């Protein structure tokens, strides 16, 4: 890494980062507010209509009947995934093929920089930028949870039957809904592992884009291939989940490692499992992937892609700009 290269990379990406950060901040906090607007009973009634599609949901529907479960859906919302994909692909593709395409790599490499410094500085800014975007995402959810209230109907009042001593509900009394702070129902810390999962997906996508960029000459080609990979991977996940006969596809798509809702469910059920690789509910149940079991392979693949990109960039010929 190099101070000047870091400064240059920050200058180049600050507008993109700011755009993504504002979009994530607004969307996540508004999303929490929307969750608070729907009464749980009404939401449950709506969702129950779609029981047959439950297998397409990453978590059982019961998870969606909790505030934490409904907020965790935010991580699967297209806007959130799109924001991080834009950040990762834009930054990764710019790293080598972007500079080559613009012709600026010539002047840059004519200076006494090592090629590893050039790619390393870009990677550092991308990863730190992604981490800050995650912080913005989590803080927005946290602020949303702190500022919103939910309306709940208290259990009906009861009256004691004289002589018999038991209580019966007072059906004549109109139950008054009460406003409860969302923070009393949801602990924002349960979203930290899901946010980390989102961060790992960002690093993976950025690493893969950088790898393609290190081999290419035109940024548009890199972006095109990345978008293609992204769409195919998403389609593979949908097919794998939708049909048993296609379930083998799950081993070919990185999206099977992006499960923020399932991760949140694990943490809600047992907060002590928030940062484990493998989780086992009981001795009779088989071991399953824990939150880190999903996130670390994504992170590892991302780092591997960055290392390969560095190796390729180190050895490749740099053609004259067209």
């Amino acid at each position, binding site marked *: 890494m190099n101070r000047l290269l870091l400064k*240059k990379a920050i*200058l180049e990406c600050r507008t993109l980062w700011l755009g993504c950060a504002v979009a994530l901040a607004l969307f996540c906090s508004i999303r929490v507010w929307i969750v608070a607007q729907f009464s749980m009973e009404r939401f449950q009634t709506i969702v129950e209509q779609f029981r047959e599609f439950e297998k397409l949901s990453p978590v059982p529907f019961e998870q969606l009947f909790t505030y934490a479960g409904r907020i965790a859906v935010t991580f699967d919302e297209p806007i959130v995934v799109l924001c991080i994909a834009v950040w990762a692909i834009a930054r990764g593709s710019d790293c080598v093929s972007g500079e080559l395409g613009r012709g600026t790599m010539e002047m840059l490499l*004519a200076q006494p*920089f090592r090629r590893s410094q050039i790619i390393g500085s870009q990677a550092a800014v991308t990863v730190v930028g992604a981490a800050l975007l995650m912080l913005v995402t989590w803080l927005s959810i946290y602020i949303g949870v702190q500022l919103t209230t939910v309306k709940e109907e208290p259990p009906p009042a009861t009256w004691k039957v004289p002589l018999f001593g038991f209580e019966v509900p007072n059906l004549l009394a109109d139950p008054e809904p009460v406003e409860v702070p969302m923070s009393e129902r949801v602990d924002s810390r349960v979203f930290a592992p899901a946010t980390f999962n989102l961060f790992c997906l960002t690093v993976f996508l950025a690493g893969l884009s950088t790898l393609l960029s290190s081999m290419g000459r035109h940024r548009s080609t890199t972006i095109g291939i990345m978008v293609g990979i992204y769409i195919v991977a998403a389609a593979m996940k949908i097919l794998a989940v939708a049909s048993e006969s296609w379930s083998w596809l799950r081993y070919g798509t990185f999206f099977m490692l992006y499960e923020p809702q399932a991760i949140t469910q694990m943490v809600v059920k047992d907060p002590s499992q928030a940062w484990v690789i493998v989780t086992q509910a009981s001795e009779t149940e088989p071991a399953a992937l824990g939150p880190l079991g999903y996130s670390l392979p994504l992170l590892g693949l991302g780092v591997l892609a960055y290392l390969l990109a560095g190796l390729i960039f180190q050895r490749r*010929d740099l053609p004259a700009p067209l």
Partner: protein
Amino acid sequence: MLIETESLTKRYGDFAALSDCTMDVAAGEVFGLLGPNGAGKTTLLRLLLGFLQPTSGRATIDGCDCQRQSVAVRERTSYLPGEARLFGKMRGREVLDFFADVRPSSRRERFHQLAERLELDTSRRVAMMSTGMRQKLALAVTLGAESPLVILDEPTANLDPTVRAQVVRLVMEAKQAGQTVLFSSHVLSEVEEACDRVAILRGGLLVHTQAMADLRRRHRIRATLTGTLPAPPADYGDQLTVRETELDQVIIETPLQLGPLFGWLSNAPLAEVRIEPVGLRAVYERFHGETAHDA
């Protein structure tokens, strides 16, 4: 020698972009590279800078291997690409500061002085600059570095005649300051004015190296042949070349004094005799003109 190449070759499959190039450039020399597009000039420069891996052969700059010690090479070199493109989001002064800070030995003032000399508006963003302005900015960045070796790949492309002359002056100043300049250009007059030696490339081969001092001494006699030309004076030996063209024209060239030749000429069956200094164009056309021949 500051630059040395030894059988430097770059092939892309069957296509040889540069073949078996062996040359050297002394410290303090201004060395020109001439040749049409595709002759191998840019490939040679990119191999020197370590942008390309050679297929075979090697190159060194100041004793540093251009492939294995590429960073050390670039510490000693500043390079202006053919079509220099700079960071569009930065302002001119930010670009100057960036490149000045890259090299600890550089002075920001020098970069800014050069920009001022080239009448550059450094407050403007690079993206808002014209092609000529961007080229001037890149020139200021390259020449401001005060490195031992300056490599200029067509530095006057996109520049108006006034600035072109200024560039040649800057190259001369670099030479006076003890810098070595490797100068690739299509503009023969600039190369002729600025260079000490010139290499001519054709189809990836270095076909001729010409010392400009020799060229300045060299004269050419053109005449119409009206009979059979007698044998030239023996004193000249192989220092005299005589070429007869299809249209009864004869071209006689020598790098030696013309005095002793006049006696022979006066007896030769020649008409419409013209004596002129041999310019670089004549040498260039020998390899790239319509009557080009193998060296």
